Each structure stands twice: as structure tokens, then as C-alpha cells.
């Protein structure tokens, strides 16, 4: 039985907020890119279909942005409310990217407001398209800055602690710590990929249900091509991340792979179960693959968990999170690749029912992979909040009201989630794109 002390409750509350927020944050980073691409295609090809697509995506996006903004505000404040001692240190060392993140957010917010209300205000459509640039930059930079903070928690550097005092601070070294490049790369590509796949899943669903029109077919082709490119990027980023872990944070990779003895030619373990004596059964074992994953050669020595004192090891259940993340990542690459291949090779039918069903599944699966990946990344650095420096127990609030706060926030996220879905469904259900097309572009052409 889990003991619900202040530390556990603080962890639960932070986890709940982040698990909820990351859905909207991922969409918030990726959808602007997709909107920009669709609008670009529309103007370039003089095709009103793509313009309607951009407009409809943007309209749904406003709802998710709102929830993203408010839950982002929540986590921003909760960092100080629940982890005051951590923020005291972080304030000294990592305030810079936190501060810059709000600038990026500010920048995005201003231009998103302008973008949404100026669709018909400029004669030259390219002027309106240009507004996408600050939005995409703002969204992606927010992800970049906040990810550097998380990277810092994994591989803290840029300061020394002498007699309990934080000294010799270098803000840039803290920001550009060893974990930053791979983390940022992985976060951004996977957010783009997930957003593309979610939009694709919605479109595929409509085509399955009532045989989509040209509009839907164009939308699916666009999102799947983008999805394939981003999935390939995500796979590359994931591979680089594993190599990074092997080098800089070996206990995290070892926990993910149930790898106890330091050895070369280490096996990769897929799924399986583990008992209290760390005996593994029911697994699929790929000989030497972990070494290959860690360093592109079967001879690479991979550090095992036994090198670490027991109280500094992450929980072993992160293995499942890791496997599911990687499994879904592979599936995304496969399904997007298949569709794009069918699209180009004429004798295959890319509107094949089975394939479409596979695409419908890929959207929610990708979002689940984001969650699994984050859970793996976060739980994988337990017991540390600042790896090697501060444990989560030392950082948590001493307040006795965390339980009440947890209950309140749980209720809040349930309400927000429910209404968000309800409003989004309502928004699109009785407004088919064809009607909108006829209304905005009578005759089906762009008047320029």
C-alpha cells in the first residue's frame, strides 16, 4: 500500500498535472506547424481545400490552447508551491530558461491572437501566412526552453555547491547541459509527429465513417507525409537519446532494460516479467542489441544497475514504459511509411480499410507514447529531483494541505477534460467542411 505522505502526494499532484498538461502542450507545439503547412499549400496551390483545412484546425486549436495555457500556468506555479526547496536552487541556476520560456509564450500568444482574427483582413494572403512564423517559433522555443530545465534536472551542471551555498553559477552551462540536445530534439520531433498523427487519425476516422471527400483525402495525404517525416526524426532522436543515456545516465537505461551486470554484447530485453529476485522471464531477448543501441557496436560495454547503490536505483517498472514508447514509435513509422508508399505506388489502394483503421489507432497511440516516454524519463531519474544533488524527499513542501490540493486539481482536470472534448465534438459535428467551403469560397476557387 502506498503511503500518502506529503512527498508522495506532491509527486502525485505534479505527475497528474504534467500528464494532463503534456497532452495539450504536445498539441500546442505541433499543430501550429501543421496549420502553417496547410495554409502554405493552400496559397501556393491556390486550393481553397487547404485553406479551409488550416482554418478548421486553427479553430479547434484555440480550445486546446486554452486548456494548455491554464494547465501550464498551473504547473508553473505548482513548481514553487510543491517543490519550494528545489525552486530555491533552480532560481539561482536555471531561472534564465524559465524566464525565456515565458517570453516565447508571450510572443506566441500575441501572434496567435492576431492570426485568429485577421483571416480576412489582409488583401495579400501571404501576409496572413507570415503570422504563422512567430507562432511556430514561439511554440517550438517554449518547448526548447522548458526542456532545457528538465534536461538540467537530469544532468545538472553550471554551478558548485560549497558548504551548502550555490556558487560559480553559469546560466548558459546549466541550460546547455549534456542532456539538452537529445532531449530537445526528441521532444520537438515527437510533438510534431504526434500532432500530425492525431490530425491524420481524425481524418482517417471520417473517411472510414462516411467516405471522405477530396478535402479529407488531401488532409490525410498531407498529415501522413508530415507524420512520416516527423516519425523518422523521432526515431533518430530516440536512438541518439539512448546513446546519450548509456554514456551520461547509465542507471536510467539499465533500469529500462533490466540490465544488471556491466558487460559488452549486452542483450536487449523486450517485455517480459521480473520477480523480486530480479529474475526475468517471458521476455523476448535480442542478443547484443543493447550494446548496439548504446554505441553502434556489439562490443560496447553497457553499465549495469549493480554499479549503483540500491537506494539510488530507479524503479524497475519503467521497463514497460520504455518498451511501450519504443513499440509505438516503431508502429508510427511503419503505418505512416505504409500509407505514403501506397500513395506513390499506384497499384496499391491507400484508402484500404485496414490501413485507415491503423491510422485511426496511430493518433491516440502516439499520444500515449508521449505519456509513457515522459513517465519513463521522469521516474527513471528517481530518487533524484536534481540527479546526484537533491532527492525528491528533500525538495518537497512541508505543507500539510497537499492532500486537499490534490483532490481539487484532480476534480479540475476531470472537468476540463470532459468539457474540452464536449466542446470540440460539438464544434465540428454539425459543420461539414463542404458547407464552409461553399460559404467562404463560392465556386470553389480562390479569388485573388
Amino acid at each position: 500500500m502506498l503511503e500518502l505522505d506529503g512527498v508522495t502526494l506532491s509527486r502525485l499532484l505534479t505527475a497528474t498535472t504534467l500528464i494532463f498538461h503534456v497532452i495539450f502542450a504536445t498539441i500546442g507545439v505541433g499543430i501550429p506547424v501543421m496549420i502553417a503547412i496547410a495554409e502554405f499549400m493552400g496559397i501556393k496551390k491556390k486550393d481553397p481545400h487547404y485553406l479551409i483545412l488550416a482554418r478548421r484546425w486553427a479553430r479547434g486549436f484555440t480550445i486546446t490552447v486554452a486548456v494548455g495555457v491554464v494547465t501550464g500556468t498551473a504547473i508553473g506555479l505548482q513548481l514553487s508551491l510543491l517543490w519550494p526547496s528545489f525552486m530555491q536552487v533552480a532560481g539561482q541556476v536555471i531561472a534564465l530558461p524559465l524566464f525565456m520560456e515565458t517570453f516565447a509564450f508571450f510572443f506566441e500568444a500575441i501572434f496567435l491572437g492576431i492570426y485568429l482574427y485577421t483571416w480576412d483582413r489582409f488583401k495579400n494572403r501571404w501576409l496572413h501566412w507570415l503570422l504563422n512564423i512567430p507562432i511556430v517559433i514561439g511554440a517550438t522555443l517554449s518547448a526548447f526552453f522548458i526542456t532545457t530545465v528538465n534536461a538540467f534536472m537530469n544532468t545538472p551542471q553550471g554551478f558548485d555547491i560549497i558548504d551548502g551555498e550555490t556558487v560559480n553559477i553559469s546560466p548558459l552551462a546549466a541550460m546547455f547541459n549534456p542532456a539538452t540536445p537529445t532531449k530537445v530534439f526528441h521532444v520537438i520531433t515527437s510533438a510534431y509527429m504526434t500532432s500530425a498523427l492525431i490530425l491524420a487519425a481524425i481524418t482517417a476516422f471520417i473517411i472510414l465513417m462516411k467516405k471522405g471527400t477530396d478535402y479529407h483525402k488531401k488532409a490525410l495525404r498531407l498529415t501522413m507525409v508530415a507524420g512520416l517525416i516527423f516519425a523518422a526524426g523521432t526515431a533518430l532522436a530516440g536512438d541518439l537519446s539512448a546513446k546519450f543515456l548509456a554514456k551520461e545516465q547509465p542507471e536510467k537505461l539499465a533500469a529500462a532494460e533490466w540490465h544488471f551486470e556491466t558487460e559488452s554484447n549486452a542483450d536487449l530485453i523486450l517485455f517480459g516479467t521480473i520477480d523480486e529476485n530480479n529474475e526475468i522471464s517471458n521476455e523476448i531477448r535480442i542478443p547484443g542489441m543493447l550494446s548496439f543501441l548504446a554505441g553502434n557496436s556489439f562490443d560496447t560495454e553497457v553499465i549495469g544497475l549493480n554499479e549503483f547503490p540500491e537506494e539510488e536505483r530507479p524503479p524497475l517498472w519503467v521497463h514497460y514504459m520504455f518498451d511501450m514508447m519504443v513499440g509505438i514509435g516503431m508502429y508510427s513509422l511503419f503505418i505512416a511509411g505504409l500509407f505514403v508508399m501506397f500513395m506513390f505506388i499506384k497499384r496499391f489502394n491507400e484508402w484500404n480499410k485496414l490501413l485507415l483503421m491503423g491510422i485511426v489507432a496511430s493518433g491516440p497511440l502516439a499520444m500515449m507514447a508521449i505519456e509513457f516516454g515522459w513517465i519513463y524519463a521522469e521516474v527513471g531519474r528517481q530518487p533524484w529531483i536534481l540527479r546526484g544533488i537533491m532527492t525528491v524527499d528533500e525538495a518537497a513542501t512541508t505543507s500539510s494541505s497537499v492532500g486537499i490540493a490534490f483532490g481539487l486539481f484532480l476534480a479540475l482536470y476531470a472537468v476540463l477534460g470532459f468539457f474540452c472534448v464536449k466542446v470540440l465534438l460539438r464544434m465540428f459535428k454539425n459543420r461539414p467542411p463542404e458547407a464552409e467551403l461553399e460559404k467562404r469560397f463560392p465556386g470553389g476557387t480562390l479569388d485573388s
Partner: protein
Amino acid sequence: MSLEVLGITVLWLFLYGYLIVASIDFGAGFFAYYARVSKREHIMSKLISRYLSPVWEVTNVFFVFFFVGLVGFFPDTAYYYGTALLLPGSVAIILIAIRGSFYAFGNYGSKDSTLYLFLYGATGLLIPAALSTALTISEGGYLTEDENGVTFLAGELFTSPYSWSVVLLAIVSVLFISASFLTYYADRAEDTESREIMRKFALWWSAPTIGASLLVFAGLRSHNSEHFGRAIDLWWMFGLSLVFFLIAVFLIQQKKKYGTAFLMVMLQFFFAFFGYGASHLPYILYPYITIEGSVVNETMGTALVTVFILGLCLLIPSLYLLMRLFLFDADYVKGKK
């Protein structure tokens, strides 16, 4: 100017910015709801939504900016306020979350939902009350510290006359600021009917604003006489605030120059807010945190200031663009765009 004074001035400016834009926003939500239940919606809600739609996200950023900046410049604040504000802070976040999302749900999703509008309108008045507890706590007396850490004395806060006077001031100020802005906005939109309603609101809420300010002063005197003394030394700032208030009310009463009148309201709150802030120094949280004692190390401080200046170079033109397109574009305000 030393780093810590520069830091707190910048942060205070942002909090002032939030005070103004959020007040307009919070009040507008309340008035929009009022218009719906008093069946005057067709007149006012369009006007309000025309103003709010493009700016609601920006309002929120001012607030995020303030607290991220505060923790950045003064990391000790995270420790004390973080521990003390867990409950009031959580309540404020939840209210802000409900308000922000239901605004979007109502405005972009289903415009006819009275429930959404109610949640949006009602929370608008509760948020200032929740947030103002942070200011109250900053006066000291609501926290104790021992070897187990910081403890928040919720009971003290709930029974303190000073605390309630601050809440009262927060709420009436919101209504007053918002009404005077919307009077101006309605006037620009040449929407006489809405203007008259808002004008009455502005005049109606003007007297309570001053009354509540006096109450706060009286409360401060008994709660933290040291701070009260420093405020008296800065009497001229509060005097100027009162002068600008009188000019604003006069103009609104005379149905003249609503734009100038709103500017006067902004100046009124500028002097009151900065007078309060300046007299609060050197304490950020009495008596635990002073600005000198808690300021971030110099390297980080310099980096923050540099980024801040660069950020402003980006933000000011962007905000200007936003205002040009929506606030000062006569055709947009009148609903022609």
C-alpha cells in the same frame, strides 16, 4: 540602480500591467454575465467579446511573467511563498484555469451556454480576491517558521480585518477599472447604449474604490505600523493618485474625453500601486525576505536583465501591432472588420 531594485521594479511593472489588463478582463467577464442575466446581452456582449477575443491569452502571460520573474530574481520567495501559498495559490490557479478554459469553450465553442458564461464571469471576481492574499501575506503575521519549516496560519488570515479590506479593494477596483475602460471602448465603437450602462457602472464603483483604499490604509496601520509609516512618508504618491481619480470621475461624469479619463484611472492606480510597492521595501515578505538578502546571484541577475531587455525589444513592437490591429483600429472596434 542596483540589481535588486531594478529587478523588483521590473517585476512590479509587470504586476501593474497585469493589474490593469486583468482588471479589464475580469470585470468584462462579470459585466458580460450581468448583461446576459439582465437580458441586455445583445447590446453589450458583442462589444466585450470584440475586445477580449484577441487579447485574453496575453493577459495570462503578464501574470506568468510576474511569478516566474519573481522566483528568478528572488529565489528565496519560492521557498517562503511556495510553502505558505499552497492552498490559496492552488485555489487561484484553479479559478484561473476554469476562467481561461471556459472563456475559450464559450467563445469559440458554444456561444449560447449560460453555464460557461457564469463560470467565466463569477471566477473573474474571485480571482482578484484569491490573488490578493499573496499581498496580504507579504505584510507578515500570517506565517511562522521553526525547525520543521514554514507554517501558514490560515485562521489568522481569514479573521484579519486587514486581509478582508484588501480583498474588498481588489474586487471594487476590478469593477471600476473595467467599467471605465469599457465606457471608453463603447464610446469608440459609437455604441451609445453600452456606453451609458458602463458609464453608470464606472461612477457607481468609483466611491467604493476610494472607500476601500482608506480601509486598507487603516488596516495596515494596525497590522504593520512600520510599513504604514513608510507609506505616510510617500504621501505625495497617494495624493497624486487621488487627484487622478478625481479628474477621471469628473470626466466620466461630464461625458467628456473617455480616453483621457481611462488614462487618468491608469495613473491613479499606477501611483497607488507604486506608492504601496515602494513603501513595502526593503521587504518582499515581512520580516523574512528583503530584496537585498534574497536577490539571485549576480551572474544570473545580469543574464536575466539582458534577456529581459532583448525580450522587450521583441514584445513592445508585437504588443503595439496587436493594439493597432484591434484596440485602436476604429473599424474593428465598431465591428466592421
